[in-house]
């Protein structure tokens, strides 16, 4: 064999094996075979080079070498004899017959090599097994000793299969345990959940009896009336709750004005209901026949009063003065009519009983299409229970049930268990859904609970007052109907609006909001008028101020929030002595009474003298007003384009911590100004040049090797370090996986770190030695 051929062969084999490709280059392979065909010497040479390549600790090299070998094996008898002679080693290097010699990394390629080798050996056995004894022996060895299942597509060895089985068994065991635990849990929890569900159910029923009925009138308190009307007459036996009171009240009215009732029958309530009510009313009438009509009237009044209270709670009551009449429909209108009628009849009685001055109410109703339950004092307990139950279900039961369902489905447990778990889940979800549909309002309640916990006595005192959410300090907006409670002028459109808005918190004389929460706002109004006459009252001061203060530029907008936006030019200052004597001579400003003796009792004969202090005088006339300016919220956004296609929503005043100076940008987040755009592009370019660490070429190559997919690591790797690898196409084995462990290792087993630690430790040891080395001397004594 010529030297050139020899060299060429070595070159070809090396090129083919270090290509890193899953398939061989056909042209090179052809050339190789062409040379091999010439003589057996060539085949010898190729065989040895291939074997040496097979011995390389790199699965890609081995795979390629194996492919060369299998190609030549089918061609040349000489190659076959050579290979079969050394078949043990060949199998060790390709099929991993020796467990102490595992196939080298990368794993993905090694697995591929293995399965390919096993398939190839089988095909060789089929065609050459009879002629080459060792091949047959090797095949039998694989089949019988290594228990390689040649039919198995994955071509796993017995060890692998056993491992798999073991894993499966372990998983089974774990699942079994979990299922058992879940079963036990379920047994334990089942009762509890059932109880919770029943409780929830009954709570809901209490809150909203049979709310499956969806008539349009089920708004506010009306459903309760209709339902109570729907119920059997034995309703009277129920404990006195608001519904009954209401009913009774109506009955009382009916008795008084039955003709009116008849006309009201045209309302939205179905005739039947009315009929029933009337019937019921008649029953009641019979029972109450002995009573005097006056008494009845009184009764009716009282109950009516109760209703009024309730209505106030349930609906937002506005003062009649400023609010127009809203368009309320149906029953509500009827009720209004009734009210008016009542007013006519029992004008002064009404005032006496209710303490309400104003007779003109407008009831603002928002008719929500769905169900709506508002928390009241009556159903407070029920609602709180519902809240607790809801919390219990969402935080405890539902997750637990979800967990069981997951466990059961994963482990393929018995259908029965799964079904039970699913049933539980369904019922829990249904309960939640119901709860959601109820739209229970309990915001106010949460606050109240907090308050109740803070001061119990106050709570008791205020029992007969309305529940008003406690306000803290500054309130930007005071609702119309609450203005009176705050001691504010009922008309917000006056120029003083901004002043009053800010003052309440500062005024020392202002009544605390709690005390102002009287049951009736009209009474409050009246009191306010009285207070204004009283100069010691804050209201008087306020009025004085209002009159005295110059009227600022008309803001004209009566709505609070809009006027809030603009900065207020005139500062509001607290009232002081200087203001009181504004433009006048202060009588005794700057005079200090000087006591000659400091003693308390020994007073000298001469009277104390007054000293005039100019500085003090000046001070009393001047006034420092610190005005830091008001906070203007930032209205602009950063609006730099983000990776997910959105714009940055940060609202920094000048500079976004992520995107730098805030510059005007257009709809897509591009800078409007040209120089900004250029700068940004330059930045972008720079950023792209310095690779982010996930695009680290070695890491990518690792991932590629593990997954077998091309992520383009070669592209990335191209422009890299100057040092070139010998075989750039092969995946790098030395590159260790960038795992947390390896990173930690790098840190912990760092040479300098180790040395430092060792130094410290030896120092500590040395100290011990210095101190105690001679201790045995003393120990003996």
């Amino acid at each position, binding site marked *: 064999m010529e030297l050139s051929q020899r060299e060429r062969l070595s070159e070809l084999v090396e090129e083919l094996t270090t290509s890193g490709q899953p398939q061989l280059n056909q042209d090179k392979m052809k050339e190789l075979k062409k040379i091999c065909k010439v003589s057996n010497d060539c085949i010898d040479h190729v065989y040895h080079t291939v074997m040496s390549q097979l011995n390389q600790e790199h699965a890609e090299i081995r795979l390629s070498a194996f492919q060369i070998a299998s190609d030549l094996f089918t061609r040349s*008898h000489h190659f076959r004899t050579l290979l079969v002679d050394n078949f*043990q080693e060949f199998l060790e290097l390709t099929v991993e017959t020796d467990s102490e010699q595992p196939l080298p990394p990368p794993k993905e390629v090694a697995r591929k090599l293995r399965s390919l080798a096993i398939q190839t050996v089988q095909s060789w056995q089929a065609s*050459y097994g009879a002629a080459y004894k060792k091949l047959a022996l090797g095949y039998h060895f694989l089949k019988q*000793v290594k228990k390689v299942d040649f039919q198995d597509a994955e071509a796993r060895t017995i060890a692998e299969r056993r491992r798999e089985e073991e894993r499966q068994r372990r998983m089974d065991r774990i699942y079994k345990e979990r299922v058992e635990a879940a079963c036990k849990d379920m047994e334990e929890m089942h009762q509890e959940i059932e109880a919770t569900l029943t409780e929830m159910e009954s709570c809901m029923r209490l809150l909203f009896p049979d709310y499956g009925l969806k008539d349009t009138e089920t708004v506010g308190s009306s459903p309760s009336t209709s339902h109570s009307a729907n119920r059997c007459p034995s309703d009277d036996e129920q404990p006195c709750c608001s519904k009954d009171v209401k009913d009774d009240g109506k009955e009382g009215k009916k008795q008084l004005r039955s003709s009116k009732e008849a006309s009201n029958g045209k309302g939205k309530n179905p005739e039947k209901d009315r009929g029933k009510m009337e019937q019921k009313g008649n029953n009641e009438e019979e029972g109450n026949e002995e009573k005097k009509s006056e008494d009845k009237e009184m009764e009716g009044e009282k109950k009516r009063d109760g209703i009024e209270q309730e209505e106030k709670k349930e609906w937002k009551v506005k003062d009649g003065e400023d609010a127009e009449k809203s368009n309320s429909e149906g029953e509500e209108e009827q009720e209004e009519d009734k009210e008016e009628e009542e007013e006519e009849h029992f004008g002064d009685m009404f005032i006496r009983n209710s303490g309400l001055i104003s007779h003109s109410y407008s009831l603002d109703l928002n008719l929500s299409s769905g169900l709506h339950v508002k928390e009241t004092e009556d159903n407070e307990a029920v609602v709180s229970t519902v809240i607790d139950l809801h919390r219990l279900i969402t935080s405890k039961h539902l997750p637990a049930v979800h967990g069981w369902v997951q466990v059961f489905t994963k482990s393929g447990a018995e259908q029965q268990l799964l079904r039970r778990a699913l049933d539980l889940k369904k019922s829990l979800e249904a309960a939640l859904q119901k709860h959601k549909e109820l739209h229970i309002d309990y915001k106010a309640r949460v606050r109240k609970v907090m308050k109740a916990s803070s001061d119990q006595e106050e709570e008791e005192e205020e029992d007969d007052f309305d529940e008003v959410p406690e306000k803290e300090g500054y309130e930007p907006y005071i609702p119309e109907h609450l203005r009176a409670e705050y001691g504010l002028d009922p008309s917000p459109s006056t120029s003083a609006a901004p002043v009053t808005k800010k003052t309440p918190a500062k005024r020392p004389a202002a009544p605390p909001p709690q005390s102002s929460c009287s049951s009736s706002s009209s009474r409050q109004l009246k009191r306010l008028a009285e207070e204004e006459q009283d100069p010691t009252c804050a209201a008087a001061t306020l009025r004085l101020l209002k009159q005295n203060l110059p009227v600022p530029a008309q803001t004209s907008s009566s709505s609070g929030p809009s006027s809030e936006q603009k900065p207020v030019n005139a500062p509001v200052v607290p009232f002081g002595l200087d203001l009181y004597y504004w433009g006048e001579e202060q009588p005794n400003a700057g005079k200090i009474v000087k006591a000659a003796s400091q003693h308390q009792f020994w007073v000298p004969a001469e009277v104390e003298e007054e000293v005039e202090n100019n500085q003090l005088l000046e001070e009393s006339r001047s006034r420092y007003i610190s005005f830091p300016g008001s906070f203007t919220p930032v209205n602009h956004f950063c609006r730099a384009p983000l990776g997910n296609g959105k714009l940055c929503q940060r609202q920094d005043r000048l500079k976004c911590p992520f995107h730098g100076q805030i510059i005007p940008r257009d709809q897509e987040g591009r800078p409007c100004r040209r120089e900004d755009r250029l700068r940004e592009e330059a930045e972008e370019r720079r950023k792209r040049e310095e690779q982010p660490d996930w695009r680290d070429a070695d890491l990518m190559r690792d991932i590629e090797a593990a997954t077998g997919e091309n992520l383009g690591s070669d592209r990335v790797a191209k422009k890299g370090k100057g040092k070139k690898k010998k075989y750039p196409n092969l995946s790098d084995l030395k590159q260790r996986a960038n795992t947390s462990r390896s990173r930690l290792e790098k840190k912990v087993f760092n040479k300098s770190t180790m040395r430092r630690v060792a130094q410290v430790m030896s120092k500590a040891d040395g100290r011990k030695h210095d101190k105690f080395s001679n201790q045995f001397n003393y120990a003996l004594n």
Partner: protein
Amino acid sequence: MLGFLTARQAGLDDPLRLRRAESTRRVLGLQLNPDRDVERIHGNGINTIDIEAIEGRYMLSGGADGVIVIYDLENYGGKPQYTCKAMCTVGRSSRYVHKFSVETVQWYPYDTGMFVSSSFDKTVKVWDTETLKPAEVFEFEGNVYSHHLSPIARKHSLIAVGTKNPKIQLCDLKSGSRIHVLQGHRAEVLSVQWSPRYEHILATASADSKVKVWDVRRASGSLFTLDQHNGDKSKASSEAVNTAHNGRVNGLCFTSDGLFLLTAGTDDRMRLWNSATGENTLVNYGKVCNESRKRLQFTVSRGCSPEFVFVPCGSSVAVYALHTGALVTMLRGHYNNVDCCAFHPDYQELYSGGKDCNILAWVPVLRTSDVEEESACTNKSAAGQSSVNPAFQDTWSSDED
């Protein structure tokens, strides 16, 4: 060859010379032959094999699963292709089968009607070949690593048994009882071997790295202990005195004439000793891989002019020249560790068993035609061969031109 023949014809040579020359040639030509197979019966590694000395026809094999198989080696078919049939088997279904791995099997030296097997189930069983039932069972306290019957004994019928117990047991077939104990070793006895020359001489190898030679008539102690340094105190450290190896000694083999004793140890060495004096002959065989923790069964050729040692060495069988220590060849064919090999003195065949469940027959390759004819015949033979077996044909495809 022709020279030998004419010399033999002329009566110039001893008849033994021709025989020796030919058998040596045959041994040198040992190869794995596709014509000779041994039936695969064992489902597990093969620990021991033994060929009977009377006819040279039957072979015993003991497997790691307790199975004992008897093979017929003789080919009466007249064809070169022959598969050694299993005559009978003590399989797992048999009620007499050894519970655990069979460590040693041996034919009764004078008759094939009886054989002895020892096993890790702490028994030595004496079997009747006809009925495949144990005629006698000796039970011991520890695992039995090895036993041996003297091949030449006429005055006694003792089985020497090496067990986990350091005491060597001697069982008498005549009385069916354990009659004697040889004390001296300090660790389990891995191998015992009777001398083929003197019927009372017994060599034992132990895990305490010592090899002792006993005369069973003298109960007080061993004759001598083999010393790898030949008593040279300067070379030996104090604890290495009188040791044959620096590790466990798990192989023992007398040469056929009984003049030399071979030992193999886990220090990857094989040593040749003068069995009369216990002197280390210091033949260097190089590294002989030996990872076995149990007994290693190896053998020496018989009737060759330089004798050969066949010793399992990893997954192959190494062939050494006995007295020079030169490695002649490696017989590669097993796919896992080889545990035992047996030489067939009549046909110069070698049988080896290993952990890959195979018993391989290494058969001398018949000499092909002479060198002069070869060139002329190459093409023809190649053609003829290819007609016989297309697998031997080169199949270069034409598109590679």
